[in-house]
């Protein structure tokens, strides 16, 4: 049975009578207990993909195309009411910034309990007990005291753990974390990542991790999706993609990471900027910045091509070989 299979996912918005498509051509799959990383520059559509999977983008006027097969159900076919019972119970979401992800007027414990109540029939005392237990498991010091505190009294790392506890309280099968560590400093980052890894291994939770930190991806992920300007350009298991990147963008992205011992000098960067939604170039969206671009790149959008194993890549360079 498929755990999560996303095929041809796209989101359309109507802006001033024009249709814009911030994300399209996204197809990947993941298994239970796996950690899938999604990497890409700011504005490449990572968060929107996560929102589309959760069905959250339809609430702000986006039209979701393609399919999101989760277990036996296609999430894109569910109604908003059905989706509400999936959200938080089967799929949990950890938003981008832990500093602002908690409601400032409620005690943090009560916020976790609220999420628990929504999906689980449980008495008040048991709920509190269970939440405190979970907080302990997430290594929150003095959980019974933190339970009674307001978000502004907690540090960033603690807030992030609270948000994770909110996500985990109903034992979801899939956890989507949108840049969970971007707002945190490096030491806390490492702790949170270790925590995620343990969760995936011990509870068999599938983890969908959005980040722009390639280091994080390399450290914890099993698979990686590389996004560029709303398109998926490459997907595959972490070793293949990192050791033998196919897409020129992936290569360039990996080339930007400085290594210790590489000597002083200019850091390499990809020339140009990510085009913003609505100003995408014709053909392959990467071609104006691509060193190996050739004629077809300007004309047509490359299709996703399956390479060896699960690896998929969207680039005309490989289309040629196939033909």
């Amino acid at each position, binding site marked *: 049975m498929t755990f999560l299979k996303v095929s041809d996912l796209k989101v359309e918005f109507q802006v001033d009578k024009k249709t814009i498509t911030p994300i399209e051509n996204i197809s990947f799959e993941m298994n239970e207990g796996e950690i899938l990383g999604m990497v890409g520059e700011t504005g490449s559509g990572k968060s929107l993909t996560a929102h589309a999977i959760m069905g959250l983008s339809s609430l702000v006027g986006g039209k979701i195309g393609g399919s999101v097969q989760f277990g036996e159900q296609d999430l894109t076919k569910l109604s908003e009411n059905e989706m509400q019972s999936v959200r*938080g119970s089967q799929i949990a979401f950890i938003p981008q910034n832990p500093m602002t992800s908690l409601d400032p*007027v409620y005690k943090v414990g009560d916020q976790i309990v609220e*999420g628990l109540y929504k999906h689980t029939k449980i008495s008040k005392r048991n709920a509190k007990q269970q939440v405190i237990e979970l907080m302990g498991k997430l290594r929150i010091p003095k959980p019974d005291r933190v339970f009674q505190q307001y978000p502004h009294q907690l*540090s960033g790392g603690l807030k992030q753990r609270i948000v994770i506890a909110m996500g985990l309280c109903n034992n979801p099968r899939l956890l989507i974390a949108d840049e969970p560590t971007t707002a945190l400093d490096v030491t806390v980052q490492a702790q949170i990542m270790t925590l995620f890894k343990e969760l995936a291994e011990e509870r068999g939770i599938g983890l969908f991790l959005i980040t722009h930190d390639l280091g994080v991806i390399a450290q914890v992920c099993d698979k990686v999706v590389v996004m560029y300007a709303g398109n998926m350009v490459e997907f595959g298991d972490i070793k293949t993609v990192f050791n033998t990147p196919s897409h020129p963008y992936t290569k360039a992205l990996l080339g930007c990471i400085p290594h210790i011992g590489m000597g002083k000098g200019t850091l390499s960067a990809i020339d140009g900027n990510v085009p913003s939604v609505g100003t995408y170039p014709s053909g392959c969206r990467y071609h104006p910045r691509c060193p190996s671009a050739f004629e077809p790149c300007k004309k047509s959008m490359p299709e996703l091509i399956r390479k060896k194993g699960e690896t998929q890549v969207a680039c005309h360079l490989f289309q040629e070989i196939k033909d």
Partner: protein
Amino acid sequence: MIENKKTEHKPPWLVILKRFSSNKMGMIGTFLILCLILVAIFAPLLEPYSYKEQNIDLISSPPSSSHLLGTDDFGRDLLSRTIRGARISFVVGVLSVAISVIIGIVIGCIAGFYGGVVDLVLTTIADLTWSMPAILIALLFVAIIGAGLESVVIAIGLSYWAQYARLVRGQILSLKNAVFIEATRSMGASDFVILFKHLLPNSISPVIVAATIGIGNAIVLEATLGFLGMGAQPPTPSWGAMMSNGTAYLFIAPWMIIFPGLAMMITVLGFNLFGDALIDIMDVKNKESS
């Protein structure tokens, strides 16, 4: 790890109370409002005479030891009537503002949360109401439902809701895309829960402040309607009606207009001072700095 150790075990209301007590103007306002409430509650015990008892021998008599504030044109004790008037003013002020706030919150929430056409229609209605002087709207409603205390409460309630609706709408608009709302939604919360359990409590503090000052305005509007003869009907003593009555005797018995006027001024001052102090204190963003 745990910041702000000092306030750790203090409930938020205690922090607010502590800060409030150091605000002099706020304390004066609180004192005035408390006086009004006490006078309103214990009016029957405080009145030296009955508010409707007429004394033909003492028509329009100036303040004296037996009638501290003098008497009116029917020989009724002005002190007793002013005391009884506090009850009317307070009840009208609080009830009408409650009506305004409830209407304002519901309309503001819906407009801010759902946006689009709903927002456009509701905001336009609110703007239209807002652009008309409250006294005109109130007069219109009183004309429709008839004079009397209940209709004054309803009329004032229906006149002032627009400001609360706009306030709430603005708050909801700025909050509805907050990350914590996204987080709540991703937990599977319904619109209703998001709107009334998360957005509203986060938007309520400016509404409380506006409502406090609004009570003062409502009391003035009640007096205005009373002055125009549209408010509480005689012999119910409303400050506005008492002043209206006094205009005929402005030069022979000025106390008839001075004392109810002073009572109203002090009351409104109390609510305004209290409201101003609340603005400084209820600011959620400053909560951490105490």
